[in-house]
């Protein structure tokens, strides 16, 4: 399956990936409205790591053998049959955070502001290219098929 990969040597730490992730997962999908009106309920669905000049975005790896799937007690975390992406059904998530504990990449976050559910990358479900990749100004994020 196509996954998001990061070429960290070209990540410029602008964090536009976070900005556009948040907008993509807003109601309006309009950047100014999302930030000025919806933002208190929203958070970017990827984790951004930075130390010194090294930086990179860390969205969910959508592991073939995803520990979060086994850890989930309600079945909220599931694999989408069509895209093979690991998705979280926020209606079924009870916020036990076992997925957060189990994720080896630390790519799942708790959304305590809005849904109170696990917040993770859904590869911008329905979009051809995830928003973070489409808006990465330096092509540090790429969306491609690679041999595992």
């Amino acid at each position, binding site marked *: 399956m196509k996954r998001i990969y990061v*070429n960290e*040597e*070209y*990540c*410029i*730490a*602008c*964090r*536009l990936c*976070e*900005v*556009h992730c948040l907008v993509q997962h807003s109601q309006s999908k309009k*950047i*100014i409205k999302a*930030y*000025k009106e919806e*933002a208190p309920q929203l958070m970017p669905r990827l984790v951004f790591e930075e130390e*010194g*000049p090294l930086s990179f975005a860390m969205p969910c790896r959508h592991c073939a053998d995803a520990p979060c799937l086994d850890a989930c007690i309600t079945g909220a975390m599931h694999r989408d049959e069509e895209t093979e992406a690991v998705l979280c059904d926020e209606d079924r998530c009870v916020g036990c955070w076992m997925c957060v504990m189990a994720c080896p990449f630390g790519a799942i976050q708790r959304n305590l502001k809005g849904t109170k559910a696990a917040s993770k990358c859904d590869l911008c479900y329905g979009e051809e290219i995830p928003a973070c990749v489409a*808006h990465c*100004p*330096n*092509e*540090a994020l790429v969306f491609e098929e690679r041999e595992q």
Partner: protein
Amino acid sequence: MSLSLLPPEFKIVRDDARCIACQVCVRQCANDVHAYDPEDDWVYSDYSRCVGCHRCVTLCPTNAITCVQNPLDFRANANWTHAMITGLHKQAETGGILLSGMGCDQPQRIYFDHLLLNASQVTNPSIDPLREPMELRTHIGRKPDRVEISCKDGKVKLDTKLAPQLELATPIMFSAMSYGSISYNACVSLARAAKQAGIVYNTGEGGLHPTLYEYGPWTIAQVASGRFGVHPEYLDVAAALEIKIGQGAKPGIGGHLPGEKVSADVSRTRMIPEGTDALSPAPHHDIYSIEDLRQLIYALKEATDYEKPVGVKVAAVHNIAPIASGIARAGADYIAIDGLRGGTGAAPTVIRNNVGIPIELAISAVDQRLRQEGIRNQVSLIAAGSIRNSGDVVKIIALGADAVYIGTGALVALGCHLCQKCYTGKCNWGIATQDPYLTKRLNPNIGSRRLANLVRAWSLEIKEMLGGMGVNAIESLRGNRDHLRGVGLNEVELRSLGIKAAGEA
């Protein structure tokens, strides 16, 4: 500390209705113009440090930022201009030489803008480059005085031994920009683009990073007065060698790469201690005459088995024609001439703006002089010094150049916004810097693609212009001044350029 009298050069105008406080501008400005105040959840801009590079403007996801010239007006004075006054204030505060990056930005006459090209109408047919072949291939190097061939058993054989040539797919080359003055990623972008476009780039006097040896066939290795990074392998891997005598932005003075830019990698490549200033002397200390130059040319030819062209780069100065004649007679295979508006990473502003002559006049003078002396075939001429578009390329070739060097144009393609602050090492576009936070902003995959696109686009335009003139090879345009006419030029200028005025048949 006394009060600085310098007003901010630029003003950041932030549209509060559009700013989402995402802080991209804060993270991207190496000059610390923008700052986020968590208490107010707001981004403020101290634009006194803004250099007008437009990094924040370009990356702002809501287009909330504009950068304008600070509208502060001094009392109108045609003599004591804004730039004069602030220059005096700066020198009064620092006691130092004013520095600038990039080429001359003063309104000296740009002759390109006073030249017009010809096209075919009725009496001679124009050529459609989309339907008919159009040759842009250019060979840089010494051409023989005559060619001898012999026929044996119906086969034609070339008896004359040809001098080594540098083959270019199109008459455009990337001019000398050293690793140190520009970032590794900028060098990689140039090298890859040169390979892709079938042209060459030039190492400047920064040596050649070992990872770039693979681009050797598309590399001109420069030997300059500091001799930085020159060793047998450096000479061997390159396609051609260039002795740098001078640079258009600063004729007559040397180079100075500040120690801060001499990182571990730059130090290894240049073969100098880390963190030390890399000083290129003004003259080569072994070249004080044409005879001395000849010795170095032949030393380099000898070192490389006479297998590659050896050129000489000089700045366009008043008596450039006899100088070029001397260089040709000293055995150079090509002469690169860098005009008044040629770029630089750092030069004293007063020198950049006042020393040298425009490339249009220099190339024309040299071409005419070499033709008069009957030695034009012995060298190729490369024109440098602000070739801004494909029209400039066509015009300068019609004035006698074989090919052009583009430096500033290439950097602009890489993202440079001509803020002229290369010498600070804080290039927000990741070009003229060695700061690891900044260099990664230039992704060579993007950079090489943009450069190759530029060369491709110009080549297409050159073909269109040639076709319009009814010429099907760039060779037929070289020195063909009949295709040029001048507008708004006086008789002396027209004579120097060797062209007629517009309207003259």
